[in-house]
């Protein structure tokens, strides 16, 4: 299947209003979930991971409060248990999410020799830069849309992120 065909397929699926679509052809398989399904749509194939460009940006107003992170990133395990102490009750229902608006690489600091923009426990203001997402050599400072206290950093420095991937959890009352 060509890249173009995959794009066309995604368009078709999103237009029909389906929530999920699976297809298998030999070694090749495609799995599409639309926003209605998880508010996060990705295509997995044996060759590539294609971020979905919905033709109409029906992007939910982010941050979306009260949704637990969909598929926890494998990097989460790297968070030292000490951090648990900072969030005694793992009740994430009142937490806000800071998500990545683009596909790219997540960087916590402006350059390798500089400290991270934010860390767990920091209080951030709306509009404050929380990280950089690099995409094809374009460097994007991500400004937070929420204020509060950072309770969790979900991605490791220099790791790839998908569209709408949750990067930080923020406690608005923190």
């Amino acid at each position: 299947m060509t890249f173009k065909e995959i794009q066309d397929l995604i368009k078709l699926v999103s237009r029909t209003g389906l929530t999920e679509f699976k297809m298998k052809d030999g070694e090749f398989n495609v799995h599409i979930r639309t926003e209605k399904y998880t508010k996060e749509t990705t295509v997995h194939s044996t060759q590539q991971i294609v971020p979905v460009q919905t033709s109409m940006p029906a992007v939910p107003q982010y941050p979306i409060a009260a949704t637990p992170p969909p598929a926890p990133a494998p990097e989460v395990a790297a968070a030292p248990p000490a951090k648990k102490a900072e969030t005694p009750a793992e009740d994430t229902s009142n937490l806000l999410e800071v998500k990545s608006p683009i596909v790219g690489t997540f960087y916590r600091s402006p350059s390798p020799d500089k400290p991270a923009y934010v860390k767990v426990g920091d209080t951030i203001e709306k509009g404050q830069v929380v990280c950089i997402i690099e995409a094809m050599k374009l460097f994007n400072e991500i400004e937070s849309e929420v204020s509060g206290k950072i309770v969790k950093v979900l991605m490791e420095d220099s790791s790839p992120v998908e569209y709408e991937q949750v990067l930080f959890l923020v406690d608005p009352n923190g």
Partner: protein
Amino acid sequence: MIKKIFSSDYPAKWVGKNFIELPWVASTNVYATSLLAKSKPSAGTVISTFDQQAGLGQFGSKWHSTAGKNVTMSIIFYPEFLEVQQQFLLSQFISLAVLNVILENGIKDATIKWPNDIYVADRKVSGILIQNSLLGNKFHYCIVGIGLNVNQEHFPSLLPNPTSMKLETGVSFDLYKIIAQLCLFVEREFENLKRGETEKIKEKYSSFLYKKDVENYFSNSDGSSFSGIIRGVNIQGQLLIEMAEGHLRPFSLKEISYR
């Protein structure tokens, strides 16, 4: 000086209208960032210096430029009409504008080395550094840094393959005139982008790609090599390579390098 050139030969209307010229500065991009932190400079504001002392390259690397020889400038945009997922178009329109300046000055063998370096034959004449600020799904601002080697003839030996417009032509150029050309061509391409001519921009960009349409060897991220033919880019900016088997395959930056 700059005003005169703008009004006559290269009449840009809004790019460079607010023209901030600094005798020297660490980095024009950093200067633009600090300006944006405390004010809202008009769209098309240019910060220019002929003595950039600590220019930024890609993520921590440096852009070297000898004082008085080259154009180093940053331009501020607010591309609110563009979806943030389509931001590779920013790379494309700037690359085309810089390329047009090179061509305008009689240098024929200029190409765009994916994603955003400008080459003359096999040597780099210009680098571009784009720094955006995103608030949710919208651009807050976009700073485009352009380093263009104009009259420099000697480069530090640590640079792999630099060249300049003078080295290519044997003549010196008026730096203000080059700036005025850049402002005009950047403005034109930006307006094409604003009018929604994204397919045209993508096609033009693709048509000027370095080593396009010829068989080439590439290295994979795992170190293995393969041959293929560069055919263009897709909307995300991935390089489309025609593989030996005949199909087009998109590659991201970290998946591939030229050999």
